[in-house]
């Protein structure tokens, strides 16, 4: 059995890596989704297809690619990031960004369709239009972030490769479950799995209530 403090350490690292990755992915993905939905520019269709395709990016492949980049002989080896939580955050950010961007694009696309004529009639600048749409999309974007968080928390392939599942350093819930299963500690593995499930459920529930409250306030 894992001592309680170690369990807390694993849960805390899981949350730290995944939440940081989702925040970074939101910072990139939401503006990217807005750009794809609102602006018309050469290569827009290609970029949209690419973003949608990357939603299904296999985590193991991302892990491998990042491993090759960050390994000592790789182009970014000098940064010495391999087997650190930072490398895990980078990997999950790569995995989650397309999810948030794709959801955001759909959300902004619907809102743009609804508000475009009204905002043009008001002579809103492009910047004012984007800010208005982001404000109006605030409830729906919670769903995009939830989807991203789901992918990040449940992911194992990338964090295993670039994190290395090092005890007290890069061990997170999914990698711990895999390890304990392989060691035959099925009870512990199942317990960890239940904690992961409960955590995921609690986060979803909290954000669901937040969204409902915001929506009721705005009567959206």
């Amino acid at each position, binding site marked *: 059995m894992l001592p309680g403090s170690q369990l807390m350490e694993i849960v805390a690292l899981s949350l730290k890596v995944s939440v940081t990755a989702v925040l970074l992915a939101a910072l990139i993905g939401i503006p990217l989704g807005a750009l794809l939905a609102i602006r018309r520019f050469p290569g827009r269709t290609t970029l949209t297809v690419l973003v949608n395709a990357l939603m299904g990016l296999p985590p193991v492949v991302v892990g491998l690619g990042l491993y090759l980049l960050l390994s000592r002989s790789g182009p970014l080896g000098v940064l010495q990031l391999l087997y650190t939580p930072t490398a895990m955050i980078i990997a999950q950010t790569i995995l989650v960004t397309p999810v948030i961007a794709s959801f955001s694009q759909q959300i902004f696309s619907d809102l743009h369709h609804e*508000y475009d004529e009204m905002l043009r*009639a*008001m002579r809103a600048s492009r910047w004012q239009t984007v800010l208005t749409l982001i404000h109006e999309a605030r409830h729906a974007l919670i769903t995009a972030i939830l989807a991203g968080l789901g992918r990040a928390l449940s992911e194992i392939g990338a964090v295993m490769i670039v994190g290395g599942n090092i005890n007290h350093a890069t061990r997170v819930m999914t990698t711990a479950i895999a390890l304990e299963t392989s060691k035959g500690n099925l009870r512990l593995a199942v317990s960890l799995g239940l904690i992961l499930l409960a955590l995921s459920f609690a986060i979803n529930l909290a954000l669901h209530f937040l969204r409902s409250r915001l929506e009721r306030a705005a009567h959206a």
Partner: protein
Amino acid sequence: MPESNILPLKPKGRQEAGAGFLISVDALGYRRGGRSLLDAVSFELSRDPGITVLLGPNGAGKSLLLRLIGGLIRPDSGTIRFSPDFRGPIGMVFQKPVLLRRSVRANLLHALAIARIPRRERTGMLARLLVAADLTHCAESPARALSGGEQQRLAMARALVGDPGLLLLDEPTASLDPAATAAFEALVCKVAGEGARILLVTHDLHQARRIADDVLFLHKGRIFEHTPATTFFRAPASGEADAYCKGTLLT
């Protein structure tokens, strides 16, 4: 409707009654899918404050013409000229009000911010607009929870932000019940009475009779007449307008 001055919202020197046009539309044409939706549409709107009703059956091209004048779409041919001293934005109200998912107050503050009204002036303007549109009692309510009539009056209040040189209203009462329609028409007449120039699209003859100063009759993408309302309803010059008034016009 409570008493308050809606216009002017800021000091201005426009729209003194007199000669000359506010807008001159010349040979406007618009085609889509091989069909001519507007064909050689020409007319002028005088600078005198008042309500011009753009009247015509469904599919005549009324909303399209309004969007062309509002600059939302570009014509294939022809020109829309504004008088050199035309000032202020063009305010628009659509048949279905598109309101932000915010309170009534926040919707108006958003419009004031978009129009780059200085922050210190916004509070006073907001209060005036709320009173003018009779929405003070629901200023904190979510805009989308208002009744249809209140939503449309909010859309009108929003269109008044920035002291518009012209108001374009596209069938604003088409979805409203008679009481809400009457309240909206009262607001429109009040705004016109305070010096606004209004172009209102409708296919409702009764509404046109109630509020029009002059009538532009559009049918199958062409202007058939532009006459004072009294003349139009007493003796329409064209057979098409006459048939429309009698309810026998085939579209």
